[in-house]
């Protein structure tokens, strides 16, 4: 999607929300470009199903549009708020479909050829996504925010509304669990024999 919005690049999310609330359509497009892919990505890592991730991201973005006129600039980061909305929507959805089997999980979306142009990379991507989905929800959420979205622990604590210590505990246990899940697949993923 190509949009002539380069002039908005230096504008903060807060300011764009204000502009959107004042009827600026370019602000709506810029916010969409900035926030929607991020919301989708987070939701996909949590849910593993493309259509569900898009639904969650769309619902989260609707909440962005809705809150824009009431947004208080400087009180919270828009992205932190959005991470929290997406996280909660994902948890709601996961709890509604507790019985979802792994059969319902999509095949991981094909990455761009330049980033993962061999079968081994695809195998690793698939394996990590499947292993994430197998984790308990809170551990998965903490790991996605820490190791894929690369948020700092205090921000994750803010998103998940828990203490920093609890975040550290969740990520630590989550990584141990991932290691256990992937342990038997080292050879298939091409890790055995790698240089240290």
């Amino acid at each position, binding site marked *: 999607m190509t949009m002539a919005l380069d002039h908005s690049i230096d504008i903060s999310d807060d300011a764009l929300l204000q502009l959107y609330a004042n009827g600026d359509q370019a602000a*709506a497009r810029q916010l*969409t470009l900035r926030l929607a892919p991020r919301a989708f990505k987070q939701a996909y890592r949590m849910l593993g199903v493309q259509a569900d991730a*898009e639904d969650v991201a769309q619902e989260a973005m609707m909440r962005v549009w809705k809150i824009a006129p009431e947004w208080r600039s400087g009180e919270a980061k828009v992205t932190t708020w959005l991470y929290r909305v997406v996280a909660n929507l994902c948890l709601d959805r996961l709890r509604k479909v507790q019985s979802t089997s792994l059969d319902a999980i999509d095949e991981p979306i094909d990455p761009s050829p330049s980033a*993962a142009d061999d079968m081994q990379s695809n195998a690793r*991507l698939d394996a*990590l996504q499947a292993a994430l989905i197998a984790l308990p929800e809170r551990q998965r959420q903490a790991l996605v925010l820490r190791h*894929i979205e*690369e948020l700092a622990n205090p921000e994750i604590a803010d998103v998940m509304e828990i203490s920093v210590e609890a975040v550290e505990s969740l990520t630590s246990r989550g990584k141990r669990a991932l290691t256990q899940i992937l342990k038997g697949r080292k050879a298939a993923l091409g*890790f055995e024999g790698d240089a240290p």
Partner: protein
Amino acid sequence: MSDETELNKMFDLTRRTPPEPSPDFMARILSDADAMQPASLGVLTETATKRGIFRDMFSGLGEAIGGWPAFAGLATAAVTGVWIGISPPQLLIEPFGTVLGTDSSAFSEVLEYGDGFDFTLFKG
């Protein structure tokens, strides 16, 4: 190689290859944004604002004069005034006729100014 390193390699690969939403996803988001943008509701907002101004004005006036019973009193007084104008009681006909006329002596009688008073005294 340690498990930690392998895991970090996989996270790194995952970060570099983000999932792509379907082509119509962004269009749907933009459509929602347009539909929900406050300016899209401009007419409604303007009407509501005007209505709000009048409501606030009457609300403020009502509070200043004692609430809705005061409005009832004002309405009664207004209706009574109109009724008197259309169909004045018999006793009021003469004095009103006098006041509205040009006979100043009769006027002084009505208002009981007493003998010797004359409006001509005020003339220069």
